[in-house]
């Protein structure tokens, strides 16, 4: 097992009946990097991510996350990862503090740890006045930032972010990415899916999925050079132009 690899994936495949959502993809993610997973809707990003998180059983292929096998050691994987899903995942009828408390508690963190880290996180987010408000009363951008903070609260090795900035305004998105950088600096490996191509520029390496296959994988500058493009947007359009299932589920 290579110590520097946070995630290794080899010919990972997921079929739903006749439909192959993810078709034998292979890639590695280095520890501590920000790895962008790009693709149009229906390209298979979310399915691939769900297999790595232990939410979906692969049809074939192998993969390890934090050194654990995705078939048999999902419980170990779950102790070492954080996850923030496309759907909003905090409890709307609990307060900010109660949400943090709950998620930290089920990861088995001590009361002392929870107490200290909560005040630290709240201070970083400048939410001192909102800690005791119900989450449903907060604007979406704030909720997403809180959800991210909750997903890395237990200090996981890797955090999976599934389109974390969907529907969020540009300013909040920028703030969100500065949070991601901060997390990466503290040593957390970031695995993020997005379809905002400007966000792809922020990643150390990106992997572009089209129709269940990986079409390209490299650093953003290299990709732009290879496809003779000025932005990631152009790279993506060149690669995804021939996609067949742009709107498939």
């Amino acid at each position, binding site marked *: 097992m290579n110590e520097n690899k946070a995630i290794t994936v080899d010919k990972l495949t997921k079929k739903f009946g006749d439909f192959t959502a993810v078709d034998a993809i292979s890639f590695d993610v280095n520890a501590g990097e920000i790895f962008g997973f790009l693709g149009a809707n229906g390209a298979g990003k979310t399915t691939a991510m769900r297999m790595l998180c232990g939410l979906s059983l692969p049809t074939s292929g192998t993969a390890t996350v934090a050194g654990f096998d995705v078939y048999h050691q999902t419980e170990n994987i779950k102790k070492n990862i954080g996850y923030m*899903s496309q759907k909003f*995942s905090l409890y709307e009828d609990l307060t900010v503090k109660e949400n943090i408390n709950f998620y930290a508690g*089920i990861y088995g963190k001590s009361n002392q740890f929870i107490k200290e880290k909560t005040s630290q996180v709240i201070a970083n987010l400048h939410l001192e006045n909102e800690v005791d408000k119900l989450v449903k009363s907060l604007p979406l951008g704030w909720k997403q930032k809180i959800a991210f903070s909750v997903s890395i609260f237990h200090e996981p090795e890797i955090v999976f972010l599934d389109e974390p900035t969907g529907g969020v305004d540009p300013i909040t998105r920028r703030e969100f990415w500065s949070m991601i950088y901060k997390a990466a600096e503290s040593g957390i490996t970031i695995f993020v899916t997005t379809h905002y191509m400007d966000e792809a520029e922020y990643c150390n390496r990106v992997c572009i999925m089209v129709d269940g296959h990986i079409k390209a994988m490299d650093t953003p500058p290299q990709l732009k050079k290879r496809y003779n493009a000025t932005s990631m947007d152009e790279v993506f359009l060149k690669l995804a132009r021939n996609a067949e299932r742009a709107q498939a589920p």
Partner: protein
Amino acid sequence: MRTLRFLLQKEFKQIFRDKAILRIIFLVPIVQLLVLPWAADYEMKNINITVIDHDHSPYSRQLISKITASGYFILQNYTASYKEALIDIEKDKADIVLEIPASFQKNLITKNEAKLFIAVNAINGVKANLGGAYVSSIIQNFNQQVRMQWIQMPRFSPQLNIEVVPSNWYNPQMNYKYFMVPGILVILVTMIGSFLASLNIVREKEIGTVEQINVTPIRKYQFILGKLIPFWILGLIVLAIGLGISRFFYGIISAGSLWVVFGFAAVYLLAVLGLGLLISTYTVTQQQAMLISFFLLMVFILLGGLFTSIDSMPHWAQLVTRADPVSYFIEVMRMVILKGSGWADIKNQLLIVLGFAILLNGWAVVNYRKRY
């Protein structure tokens, strides 16, 4: 254990913040218990009767006043002909028509017999049956009175001399509410158990939070216990409220030990919670869960012996009721509350319901998946 504590804390906070659920838990039982027992009463009262009296004799008038004085009948109308009386039935104003022929009194005295005619509106079978039977028995009674008056005591009494003195055990006044209220309590507890628990879990599926839970190291059994325990406690609380209401409003004081009632309810709730859990593993939206629970509850109630006696169902239906957990609890509730049965008497039912609890929960746990 620590994980479970966090889960329970979260669950109780959510339940007590949800006004709709609180209303369902505390208001619905109260309203149901205060209203339903009055409506679900099989004793027939207010039967409308239309009388055609061709005789206009003291006897015919005596008979009519005997019928109206019984308390079961309302004298709807006097008509001159059978035809007019039928119109009352057609318009649903009358349930029963009693026709007294012209020489009723004369025939009764001289020929020692007289004929009466009763027509019953049989659209509502129960009302028709009971109403017809009541009228017949009142007429029988009247008949005996007349005979006593007119027939000299002969050496050989023409009347049968068997006297029947019924004694109603366990419910001496034959108060229908004593029979219904314990059964309605069972339905309430069942609803809290199966409805609310399954809706709660499916709601997390709908919102997407269950996914977040599934990527945490929470074990399957921890999540399930975290969902079951709160509703198990709520079910017992609702039962306690219900027993309080039946005591203060209907004067029903359990003849048997309340420990037996709550002990059985505790096991029974495990079974219905297991059912709720099972429903939640097969559904993805609250509507689906609601419809399935509703369908099952309907079948369970109708087969459970709440309204109709299981003993009078056809054999195959009786076999089906054995797969109905509701029927066992209704039976036990009536046994304990009205008859004062103890642990030994309800042992069989307890074991069967325990079997249901193990089967349903086991099935649900196997079918509950963290990974698809």
